[in-house]
């Protein structure tokens, strides 16, 4: 067993393009890192920004969000809505110091099996480089176990 850090990554993808694209990666037997687990959504428009934060809070070190290319959305415009949402969300997170390098957005069509493998591999490599996202998790682990932690919390509470 090597000791290299294995990042945990969740991928939020739409059913019609990227999920199918990842299916194609499979049928083409293109190998990629096993760190990524796919969550299937009907459309990128469906992906709630809170789910990205929840993923981080619960131990993900990175998140991939992927859907149909612009103009290819199965629902005509879900990805356009999503794109706006990510533009604002991303800049807000950046302003708050949340590490946006850990969120990789992409458009992967049903025909881009190889692109999917590339995106996964590149993301895994870059997150491996960044290391585990402990800062965020630490903030999430409020009241972890003991009284000392609570005292610290009380301190900031009253600071």
């Amino acid at each position, binding site marked *: 067993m090597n000791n290299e850090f294995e990042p945990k990554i969740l991928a939020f993808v739409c059913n019609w393009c990227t999920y199918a694209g990842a299916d194609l990666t499979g049928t083409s037997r293109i190998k990629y890192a096993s760190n990524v687990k796919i969550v299937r959504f009907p459309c990128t428009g469906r992906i709630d920004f809170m789910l990205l934060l929840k993923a981080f809070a*619960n131990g993900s070190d990175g998140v991939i969000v992927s859907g149909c290319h612009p103009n290819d959305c199965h629902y005509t415009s879900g990805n356009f809505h999503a794109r706006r949402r990510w533009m604002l969300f991303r800049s807000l997170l950046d302003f708050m110091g949340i590490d946006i390098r850990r969120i990789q957005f992409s458009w992967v069509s049903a025909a881009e099996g190889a692109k999917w493998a590339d995106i996964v591999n590149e993301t895994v490599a870059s997150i491996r480089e960044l290391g585990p996202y402990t800062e965020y998790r630490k903030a999430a682990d409020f*009241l972890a176990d003991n*009284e000392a932690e609570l005292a610290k919390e*009380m*301190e900031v*509470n009253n*600071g």
Partner: protein
Amino acid sequence: MERKYISHNSLMNWLTQLNNEGNQIYAPVAKGNKTDYKHITSVEEISMDHIQTTQSAKAVAFPRTEKLFSYTKKNGDVTLQNFDTTTIPETVVFGIHPCDAAGFKPLSGIFNWDTPDLPFNERMKRTTLIAVSCTQCDEFCFCTSVNGSPGNTTGSDILLTPIKDGYLAEIITEKGKSLVDKHSSFFEADPNVNKEEYLAQVPVQFSLEELNKKISNMFESPVWKQQSERCLGCGACAYVCPTCACFDIQEDAHGSSGNRLRCWDACGFSLFTMHTSGHNPREMQSQRWRQRLLHKFSYMPERISVRGCTGCGRCSRACPVDMNIAEHLTEIAAL
């Protein structure tokens, strides 16, 4: 009650000493234009220029979020880890004002009303309150209208009143006495001063007697609606209040383990009384405002014989729309 003198330097040394002995010291620390209690590591951090800290010190015994117990589920069995009292540190709170110290009494009344509350009582047991009398006040202060005063000793373990270069120290409780006795070298003899001369002059704004007489019988009064019109329904007043003790119980669940948390809640929130059925007995802001005042000035005195207000004025200062409680009480007293 014992009276002593302590110079400013000695006071600082004493606090340093207490800190070195492993007590957690909370004291007012200024940041920007706000001052609030903070766990200090050095007496340098202490600031006493404020009239009132933004928040009361109640979090020392009633933290905004507190883990009551935790659990783990495994193969259908549940294991509980109870509230562990042994890890609560010895705590000294320095620099609270008499109105804040007085707040611990109603708090204690609530937490011991029926079943004694273990976390609260255990924290209180390990907490010593060193209060400082007020030498200044502002237009929001009204302790004198609710039977308090800038030099009131109720609730404090030790009350310091600033005089010349030092303080008159009134040692009120056994807890206070033991803390002083342990370090008696810092203290000098009773300075024999008239304490009143050094205190702030807080004008009486309304007659408590009149208020008491009226408030219990005015559940149906139109005044509540009129007073509460501008109230936005946030929880700022309750959260800064030294006596507000409402809490909610929440589940911090992580798969098969989790924590049961107690966290602050406020009767001003519209959902505070919302039933699962969708029915809300306090549907209107006016009803919630009435609840807030009646609870403090009618229900609490009736049930636990203590008023839920110490006249600190924090709620008025914190209110985004200037719901000045003293002004409203004055209005009621004059009805």
